[in-house]
């Protein structure tokens, strides 16, 4: 390697709940090649400066999922994040434990809630004894059927998505992106006999709590794209069951609303989502909004250019070619 080195400053979150009153940041400065992975730098700090730094790591090749942590506020795998671009952008490298998980020590977090959510989606084939598997041979599955899993088989359960997810932070009832991507993997599995039940159950067990912010997809080191699979689950759930929950009714109401007039009728949408009782419950809040922002209450009307909107819906209604 003829490449030169750069001075890399690391500010690393340190916290030992048994000893420390509060977390602190400890600074380490090393000379490193710019393409050095963050994990290599952390192991160098452990080996040469401070053996007390605690972290999880194993494969160092982005396949075991052990070393997810926050690097300059992004949930990443330390092993595949190079220091050069981080230093170029932020001037230093701040290393913190993942979010949405309590800290056991330094960069090591408690993952029990993450694993519990994974278990809750029943991550195994649900079989129907009336349709036994072929004896002595594999179930046939075409390459096209394998394609339906999309990128979900690549998931390494690193929890970077769980760490990045604001819905996980806001509501412990949300299973998190990894668990839902895992659920998708079983829903599309032609061997699985539990699709309908799985979709019905997840409608009431957090599916609609996803905020559609796509931060999980941005964080995922394996390009599993959890937010897109959550979208697919919502579509499949509505297709199977129609609107049964606030979330699905809201989505359907939203779609019908725009189809009618090209813009939202918020009053109507509240009724579609929550029913008459829901409207009454939300009345005080509605009145406050009207008082403060009367311009929000517009007379329902159809926008100009409805023909363009109709074209969009026609395209949406056309049977989709299979991915």
């Amino acid at each position, binding site marked *: *390697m003829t490449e030169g080195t750069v001075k890399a400053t690391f500010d690393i979150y340190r916290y*030992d*709940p*048994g*000893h420390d009153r509060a977390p602190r940041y400890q600074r380490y400065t090393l000379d490193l090649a710019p*393409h050095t*992975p963050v994990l290599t730098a952390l192991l160098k700090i*452990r*080996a*040469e400066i401070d*053996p*007390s*730094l*605690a*972290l999880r*790591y*194993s*494969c*160092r*090749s*982005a*396949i*075991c*999922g*052990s070393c997810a942590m926050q690097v300059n506020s992004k949930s990443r795998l330390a092993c*595949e994040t190079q220091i050069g671009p981080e230093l170029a952008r932020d001037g230093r490298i701040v290393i913190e434990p993942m979010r949405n998980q309590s800290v*056991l*020590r*330094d960069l*090591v977090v408690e*993952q029990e809630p993450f*694993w519990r959510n994974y*278990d809750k989606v029943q*991550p*195994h*084939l649900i079989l129907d004894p009336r349709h036994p*598997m072929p004896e*002595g*041979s*594999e*179930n*046939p*599955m*075409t*390459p096209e*059927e*394998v394609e339906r*899993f999309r990128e979900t*088989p*690549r*998931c*390494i*359960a690193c929890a970077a998505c769980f760490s990045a997810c604001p819905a996980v932070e806001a509501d412990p009832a949300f299973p998190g992106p990894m668990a839902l991507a895992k659920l998708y*993997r079983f829903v599309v*599995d032609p*061997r699985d006999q539990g699709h309908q039940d799985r979709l019905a159950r997840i409608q009431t067990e957090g599916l609609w709590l996803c905020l559609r912010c796509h931060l999980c997809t941005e964080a995922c080191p*394996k390009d599993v794209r959890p937010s897109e699979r959550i979208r697919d689950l919502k579509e499949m759930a509505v297709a199977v069951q129609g609107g049964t929950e606030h979330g699905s009714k809201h989505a359907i109401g939203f779609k019908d609303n725009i189809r009618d007039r090209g813009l939202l009728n918020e009053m109507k949408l509240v009724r579609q989502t929550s029913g008459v009782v829901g409207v009454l419950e939300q009345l005080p809040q509605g009145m406050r909004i009207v008082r403060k922002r009367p311009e929000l209450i517009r007379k329902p009307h159809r926008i100009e250019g409805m023909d363009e909107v109709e074209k969009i819906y026609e395209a949406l209604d056309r049977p989709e070619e299979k991915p």
Partner: protein
Amino acid sequence: MLKHDVVVVGAGLAGQRAALAAIEAGRDVAIVSKLHPLRSHSGAAQGGINAAVGKEDSVDTHVYDTVKGSDYLGDQDAIELFCREAGPTVVEMEHFGTIFSRAPDGSLARRPFGGAGFPRTIYAADRTGLALLQALWEHLGTARFTLYEEWALTSLIVRDGRVQGIVALDRRKGDFAQIGAKAVILATGPFGRVYGRTTNAHSCTGDGVSAAYAAGAALKDMEFVQFHPTALMETAILITEGARGEGGILKNANEERFMSRYAPHVLELASRDVVSRAILTEVLEGRGFPDGSVHLELMHLGKEKVESRLQEICDFARSFAGIDPVTQPIPVYPAQHYMMGGVGTDSHGATNLRGLYAAGEAACVSIHGANRLGGNSLLETLVFGRFAGEAAAAYAESAAAPEVHDADLDASTAPWRAWSSRSDGEDPSTLRTEMQATMDRYVGIYRNEADLLEGLRRIRALKERAKNLRVVDQSRVYNVNLTDALETAHMIALAEVIVVGAYARTESRGAHSRTDYPKRDDARWMKHTVAVRAAEGPQLSYSPVAYTRWEPKERVY
């Protein structure tokens, strides 16, 4: 006191499959793992799993290829059993939910692999280990067992000539604890980290093999160390043999497809020992690239094939080497990859110690002999994991309850606890780095007497220094400094066994290449090395190779 019928140490494929078998046999089972099971190194296996299920293929051909690949050191009875189980094992994993790659007709897709007469390697893109690990863990989730997550094995409890439990460190709490067991199954995987340049994960430190050795178990064929031909030049990250199976070729700096000189019939798909030696020879004779590598070319396969069948290695090459395999050659060089040796077992996982079983890479059955074929190790974990689980469960059914005394814990863990109270002593990282440098330099692909003697001298000096290890981190919770020290001590013990075995074996066979004894010597060395611990170091003896139908021949690829 914690107690179970069967305690499985290690939660990769072998450990999980063993646990499943013991649970199905009705035993109370615990799994002890220093990592979450889904983080096990089985998940890093890329290329595939062998099963002779194609119409043109046969179990006998799989047996022959494995025997030949082993350079006639594999036990043929065990290999026959192993190959017969291959088809049903793969089907079972498919039924458990594994997402395999498929052929257009919906059957399991197969790719060619090194040393195999037919395309026999069933795969899931280039993440077959991950696909199997996910499916098995998810299937196991429907069964009842106790998981000791992030517990690191330190030693075995032996009483009255019988293994009756384990001692382990609960990494989260920082406490040592004993777990009593009627039977213990070691499935702790490899110890590739005795080398610096290795494809193995940092956690592959042979804790189980070392604990077995310390307890008096016989280790077998430890000198046979597989070097994978194609690891990334700088980081030693694995580039699957599947890359060559899909048509990837190797070139030297003169643009020559040099494998034609070493394996004129099958070129890049010769067995791993042959290809690794070829690469080393090219580089030593001055035909390597300036960085000391040779090039693995995939560009001619086309973007679509490379990105779909070799998706992970595309990511690896891009993230870890800054190379796009679709348009650029990948600089590669061999790296330690697999340990053919391990705890000696019969084909049901039983060791020479009553109550102790082993399976997977931690064990040596031996089916790989002097050189393992690609695609045979995933199969080994599942086949022999199951057999070990069944045998341990059967033994536990009639075995007496384990006798473990709380009062023994202090004495048995005193040496490790002493590391933390020392004010001066040896740094585990330093010892580990020196051990790795020693093994890389003196006990590599090509070996000779002078190097091995020097290697042994250095490893023995490290062994002395390891008696004075010091752990500076005083916290109990997740003390990586302490696990580092435990692992380093485990590995130095195993490194010594490797070197002693390699020094004694004055022939070249499979992955063991002595430049001072370049020929295979069947008259003197067609036998397994057996190493047992003694005060002064490993004591070697030899045991016969089991033959059935395949006469030793010269290996030509």
